[in-house]
């Protein structure tokens, strides 16, 4: 079992080179939420050469569409959505300097290879534990596309947000390795 690592976001190439599959990581710093609709808009802006609503260099994007915030709370339930739907967009953001993605579920071979090329790590957060994960989000504000509701882009300040490295920058895949270890014929 690998030791828990505490790291600060944004990330650089040196940070991501230290991460291996199975590493349990506590993330602190600023992360950005975006899911399908926001990704479509971001990639649209990139293709038109326009400025993006946040600095992608070194950023970590969290695939999440939180439930509405109750009065007096910071955010609602906020667990990861299925990452595979973002595979068609992720490469363009890696090219812009994105260093980490947080979500759940398998990524395509193409995205795993792109992660190697552009040095971008894929972190898994546990799906279906949004009430628990929300406790690690200390601040949250919508910075773009408010009209998208749960799909708006949020800037979130997190403290010790628990994730595990699923795909490192060396082309490894924890989902495949985990199955190999526990599969019975």
């Amino acid at each position, binding site marked *: 079992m690998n030791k828990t690592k505490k790291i600060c976001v944004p990330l650089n190439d040196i940070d991501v080179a230290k991460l291996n599959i199975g590493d349990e990581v506590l993330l602190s710093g600023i992360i950005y939420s975006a899911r399908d609709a926001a990704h479509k808009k971001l990639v649209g802006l990139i293709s038109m050469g326009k400025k993006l609503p946040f600095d992608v260099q070194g950023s970590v994007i969290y695939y999440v569409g939180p439930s509405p915030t109750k009065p007096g709370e910071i955010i609602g339930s906020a667990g990861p959505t299925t990452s595979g739907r973002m595979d068609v967009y992720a490469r363009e953001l890696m090219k812009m300097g994105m260093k980490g993605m947080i979500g759940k*579920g398998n990524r395509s071979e193409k995205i795993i290879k792109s992660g190697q090329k552009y040095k971008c790590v894929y972190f898994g957060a546990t799906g279906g534990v*949004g009430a628990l994960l929300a406790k690690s989000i200390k601040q949250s504000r919508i910075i773009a596309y408010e009209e998208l509701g749960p799909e708006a882009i949020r800037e979130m300040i997190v403290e010790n947000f628990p994730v595990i490295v699923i795909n490192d920058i060396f082309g490894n895949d924890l989902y495949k390795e985990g199955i190999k*270890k526990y599969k019975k014929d």
Partner: protein
Amino acid sequence: MREIGCLEITKAVDGLCKDANFLLPKDVIKALEKARENEESSCGRAVLDQILKNIQIATKEKIPLCQDCGTAVVFLEIGQDVHIVGGNFYNAIKQGVKKGYKNGYLRKSICHCFTRKNTNDNTPVIIHTDIVPGDKLKITFCPKGGGSENVSTLKMLKPAQGIDGIKNFVVESVKQAGANPCPPVVVGVGIGGTFETTALIAKKALLRKIGEHNKDSEIANLERECLIAINNLGIGPAGLGGRTTALAVHINMLPCHIASMPAVVNMNCHSARHKEITL
């Protein structure tokens, strides 16, 4: 003829939306606790600890177990001696969902297929109605998450494929889904009927209590065999590798056409939410 008013129905559905999203059924919690005891993988145990902690927080603080508060799926069992008064029955259910999702701070996840524009009140509601003997109205609310629904499968099998063919189809569906449906999953299986009823009985299978098997011993055996084969896949909690990939396999069967053997796998995540009330 017993009369039930639409206002009462709206109030009941409003409450069900919130209860189903904040509280997990006891049988599901028990199955998760048992999985935690039996899990060999340390990553798997850590995930199950997070899941159990999450249930405590959601229950105590009345916040959704999962940010995906689902498609609003409602199953009705209407006693044939019940008379609904004071308005439009289906509209009363719709109003209940609108209210529950608004005042419960539940995520509205329903949108237009092409424009992706959100309907902003989590309607339309998917309603399935059965007429049964008696003078009661049973309403079951099932908030169905998108991640597990997306990996559900339908296959028109050939009769020659037999029970082995069904088993392979079920196990392969779970294998292909991998980490995406938030394992440990509950696997609802429909076999037989017609194209559309197969899917419906698979969804109804998700409402069965974990630990209960089909009353037909042959089908119950198939459920046990499928569960063992699925848990031998090694996918484990959150797909990180481990012993518990599924908490249960529930199979519902109907006779089918001599030319056919339709089969459906409707997947549910570990947050296997549903809540019922009888009026």
